[in-house]
């Protein structure tokens, strides 16, 4: 199994490790619920280095990415990111990912751990620009929660209030005496006099304010410990994938490989805003053909009785099977069972009543709007 450069730090913190897409990752340090609450109420720190980092560079990079992604990066300024789906020729989702324009002709795409190699191959087949997989050189830390900005601000002179959502910037973290560069051969940014150079994005997968911090693997333990120290008095704790899954599901964010697995299109999963029809992209023609056909759609489902929906539970209306759950949990914030599920389109409107079959018992539920917990 692959390990991130922070593996030993996780072990020292008493993390329970699991296999996630071939990576040995912390699922929890102390308690999934405690870590969940830290992120909703204070702050949490995640190692998400299993996510991929693919650089697409050169004159044609913008056109290449426009052709590969459902959302349109045309003309976005440096330091701006978007969320998009990458489709195959049939319009089926290969992966969902963020892409940032880091420099004028250098973009970074961040695919999911399980799909990095598939995405890389797909890009290689379809682009002229230079593609570099820098996943193994980069550690990605996510600091998430209402106090994330105050904590990170302690470690940098950069005014983080200037960094808006889905924006990124090169930021020097005031950690250590030495100057540490961040991928200098790619970015050719001047070295800081002292401190660790990083690329910081105001983004995340939890619904809270927060940042995703890219650093070189060699500096990761210093940065990890510095953030834990800086955040300690703010209630920041290290958080694992268990809490991350609860947090993302309450927001209705998709989990690659679980909520889509190569057999669904963006028309089924949404979000609609991730498709910009005005530009040409791979899979667009297939999507247009699908538009008028009846499809199953991914919806939010809330249980009206006490129970927990799980991946694979069947959904019925009037005794007929009309759908299946892909992700489910007990929402700590709502105190209710919530799930993402594919249902036949005619039953996909908010308010639609459903029965979820959990261990042979029928549990009342209804379709609700996402996010489950409202806009944060």
């Amino acid at each position, binding site marked *: 199994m692959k390990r991130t450069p922070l593996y030993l730090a996780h072990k020292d913190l008493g993390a*329970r490790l699991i296999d996630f897409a071939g990576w040995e990752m912390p*699922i*929890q340090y102390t*308690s*999934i*619920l405690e870590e*969940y609450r830290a992120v909703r109420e204070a702050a949490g720190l995640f190692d998400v280095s299993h996510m991929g980092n693919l650089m697409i560079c050169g004159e044609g990079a913008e056109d290449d990415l426009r052709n590969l992604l459902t959302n349109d990066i045309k003309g976005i300024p440096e330091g701006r990111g978007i969320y998009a789906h990458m489709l195959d020729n049939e319009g089926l989702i290969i992966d969902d990912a963020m892409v940032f324009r880091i420099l004028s002709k250098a973009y970074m795409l961040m695919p999911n751990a399980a799909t990095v190699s598939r995405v890389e191959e797909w890009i290689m087949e379809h682009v002229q620009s230079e593609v570099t997989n820098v996943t193994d050189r980069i550690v990605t830390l996510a600091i998430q929660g209402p106090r994330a900005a105050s904590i990170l601000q302690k470690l940098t002179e950069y005014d983080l209030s200037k960094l808006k959502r889905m924006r990124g910037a090169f930021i020097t973290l005031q950690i250590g005496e030495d100057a540490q560069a961040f991928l200098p051969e790619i970015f050719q940014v001047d070295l800081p006099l002292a401190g660790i150079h990083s690329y910081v994005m105001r983004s995340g997968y939890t619904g809270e304010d927060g940042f995703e911090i890219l650093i070189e693997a060699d500096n990761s333990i210093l940065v990890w410990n510095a953030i834990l120290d800086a955040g300690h008095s703010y209630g920041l704790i290290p958080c694992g994938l*268990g809490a991350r899954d*609860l947090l993302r599901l309450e927001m209705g964010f998709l989990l690659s490989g679980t909520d889509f697995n190569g057999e669904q299109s963006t028309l089924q999963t949404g979000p609609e805003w991730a498709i910009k029809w005005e530009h040409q992209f791979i899979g667009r023609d297939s999507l247009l053909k699908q538009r008028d056909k009846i499809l199953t759609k991914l919806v939010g489902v809330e249980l009206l009785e*006490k*129970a*927990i929906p*799980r991946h694979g539970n069947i959904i019925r209306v009037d005794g007929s099977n009309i759908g299946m759950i892909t992700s489910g*949990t*007990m929402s*700590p914030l709502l105190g209710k*069972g919530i799930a993402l599920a594919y249902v036949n389109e005619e039953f996909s409107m908010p308010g639609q009543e459903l029965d979820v079959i959990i*261990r042979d018992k029928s549990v009342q539920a209804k379709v609700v709007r996402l996010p489950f917990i409202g806009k944060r």
Partner: protein
Amino acid sequence: MADNIEIREDLRYTTNDEWVKIENGNIRIGITDHAQQQLTDVVFVELPKLGTIVKRGDVIGQVESVKTVASINAPVNGEVIEVNERLDDLPHLFNESPYDEGWLAVIKMKDSSEYDDLLDADEYRKKLDE
């Protein structure tokens, strides 16, 4: 096996990680410390119904954590005569106090010799070490 798992000497155990305590010819059951650690935070429980006649091995309850779900099986033949309804509102008692406040049910045994078939603390410890 991790050293931080509590196994009580005065209890009996099943291979399915339930503990069993004998009380006046009845048995009180719950899930072991090992089981609750494996499950992680318990957030929901399906309790057995009072008066249910159970056969050894029957599923009599479900414990769900944020991560997964586990069945609790009847360790003996008998009848459910008491249920810990506090768990409905306080499912985390399974985590905080697996051997005391987190008990699940009391079963009146049909044949008290079945208690002797259960694992003792040493046998359970050995099973966990495997």
